């Protein structure tokens, strides 16, 4: 949570610096200066110019995951970061590809049934549908892809093999972008994660430990103006 606060403070610091910038229209020759131009939501909101605000973007996000279900009985929570690239498609769609690194925290009071080190590298693709394009841009999102999972140091059984495996991952959620300048903004979202780990199989007495959880995300966005 501290990191999210830091991100927000960082964004405000950028916008604060740019308060002295003029509100003249964007010129190619002045693109550097324009990138820090602060957006006045009162003036811009609902204007036709702002209908064009959706653009290609790069964004870095931090995620905190609150696990659910049987998986939560072994791994309390997780966190990680991702680097995302979004490609704009008319008129409200953003296709996104992303990758990063995540770590799940094994519960200290559990003495068997899980791995002390549980990390994964997600490689996901999907998209967002923006329901409103303005200074405040809410959206619904869907992402899916693979998690390359590395699990080592099984607790309670020294003979248990370490595992490196690839599993399907899926995420739906909603969030919003807020653009503070023409190029910079912040992002926040809440997602539901549903990723394969261990399926339930009554035939062999295996209980399911699918990686379900709620993910809280904050990030920094850089927009490529069209």
């Amino acid at each position, binding site marked *: 949570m501290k990191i999210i606060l830091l991100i927000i403070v960082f964004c405000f610091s950028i916008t604060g610096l740019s308060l002295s910038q003029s509100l003249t229209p964007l010129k190619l020759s002045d693109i550097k200066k324009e990138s820090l131009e602060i957006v006045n939501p009162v003036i811009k909101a609902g204007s036709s110019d702002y209908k064009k605000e959706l653009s290609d973007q790069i964004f870095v996000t931090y995620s905190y995951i609150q696990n659910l279900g049987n998986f939560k009985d072994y791994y309390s929570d997780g966190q990680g970061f991702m680097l995302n690239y979004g490609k704009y498609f008319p008129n409200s769609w953003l296709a996104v590809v992303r990758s990063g690194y995540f770590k799940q925290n094994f519960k200290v009071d559990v003495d068997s049934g899980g791995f002390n080190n549980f990390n994964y590298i997600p490689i996901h693709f999907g998209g967002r*549908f923006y329901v409103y394009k303005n200074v405040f841009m809410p959206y619904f999102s*869907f992402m899916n892809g693979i998690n390359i999972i590395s699990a080592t140091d099984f607790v309670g059984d020294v003979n248990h093999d370490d595992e490196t495996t690839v599993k399907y991952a899926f995420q739906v959620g909603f969030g919003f972008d807020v653009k503070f300048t023409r190029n910079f903004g912040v992002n926040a979202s809440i997602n539901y994660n*549903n990723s394969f780990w261990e*399926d*339930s199989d009554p035939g062999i007495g*295996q209980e*399911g430990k*699918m990686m379900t959880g709620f993910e809280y995300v904050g990030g920094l966005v850089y927009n490529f103006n069209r």
Partner: protein
Amino acid sequence: MPIKKTTLLILFVLFFAGVNFSPGQETAGSKEVLTLKKLSEKISYAENGDKIKLTLNSITRERYSSSVIKSFSNKSNKALSKKYDDFGDLTSKDNNLLTLSPKSKYSLKNVISNPLPTPEKYVPWESTKHFGWAVFDELFFNIAFPWALARFGRDWDSPGQGERWPFIGWQSIWSNLNNGWNYDGDNFQTNYFAHPFGGSLFFNSGRSNGYNFWESGAFALAGSFIWEHFMETNQPAINDWVNTGLNGAAFGEILYRLSTMVTDNTARGSHRVWTEIAGGLFNPVRLFQRLVTGEVSRVFPNPEWRKPDYFNLNLDAGTQVFTNDSSDVKELEGMFEMNIVYGTPFEHKRTTPFSHFAFNFGIGTTSPTVQNMHAIGSLVSFQISDKKTAKHSLETTLNYDYINNVALIYGNAAFVEKLNSEYILNNKDLRLRTNLGLRIIPMAATSDDYFLDSTDGRNYDMGQALGASAGFGLYKDGWSILEVAYAMDYLWTQSEPAFSEHLVQWGEARFQLPLKEYFVFGLSFGFYKRNSYYHYPDGFIIDPNTGQPKATPDVGFQSPLIRAYFKTRIF
């Protein structure tokens, strides 16, 4: 209770329909369309309108009923009313006025030279996006209504929680969110036949409200997600989600295009009624939306893409022989097939998804009745070269395969990367087409020789697969003379218990002899082949007869396929 709710829904729909069924709605397209009603208005507004009298010449008299002509001839122009809409459309071009008498023609030209302001152009419903209606169709028409039918429309006498899937509550929703995905135990027909059709309804919630193929695909995936997580007590099944989403998009787009093709926005009278009914049979969601918006009775231009450059619907009937997978006995049965080819694979002017597709549907005289369905729809294609004698293109297709006969059970949703080539041989009418494909399959299923889900009865495995396909064909005068096709997929089982892998292959060579322009005789030789590799732990599979652990050796099975048939082209 269920009857009352159903009745209320029908009344609700009819209420909208009734409001919008007012006759005589006219629409101006890109050129001014002048109906008799409008003509009447124009004349009545003209300076000398009361002096103009229209009479019909002999040609026009032959075209229209005597009652219409009588009224038309006897009344003054101000009295012309909407009943004359049957007269049809007139444009302002002179040649269209030649069907009237010379005197009328002169008068009309004067009137038309000072027309009324052109009416505001009508924007067809499907040409703009309607998010609210799309969500309404998705949530109420395709989710809440079927759920309510299942929950209240039948007696649930089984006390087992798993059998009472519509008895949802906050607890079941929270449980589903906690447990996450699973592979379900439903039978093959439910998962690979019913779910794709359900998905087509989700898909058309978007498609019938102005969204394109890709956007509507999101509606199919979202609808299935909502259904799996919130509308059933069963754990969400990822195989349902994929089959409903991907195969639903394939079916949905095919049905949307067929519905649009048979619906004629410019038709009137009984012809219009029948085209709307036919369109509604293909796509009930679209019919519902057209009832709500009143487009079922509005006259307006058809979309430009309504009719493809090429369309071929043919039916065939014959017999086929293959070997039963379980008994190793050769079986003979009657077989009926329908084939649709929409658009041409080498037409690159319009490369929207499914601007070219092929659909095959076959039923047999033995059980199961529906034995095969295949859909291939073009998603994107790129032309590599286009010469007089040879064309090459790269194409990504969305494929659906459903094979369910005594020789092989196999289903999938697949993306196929294909290299298509067409060579025009010496004779200009003779074409050789080839294709080579790589198949990426998010969800496939085929028989498991040992596993049987004791609760739901599933006896097949599901998982992801990779495969390849190849084929070539000789075509002349719209018929294939020779077609050879082969496909193979390698499936890694992911559904528990995941102790198997499968190699599935099938191929067919068809020879067709055109007897008439619309009639051919065909012979087909093919095979189905499955190699299954099992690595169940010792003692995992128990023989139900002896109660003892059962060995699980690998299994190889092959069935020849021989068919003889007659085929006729309908369109």
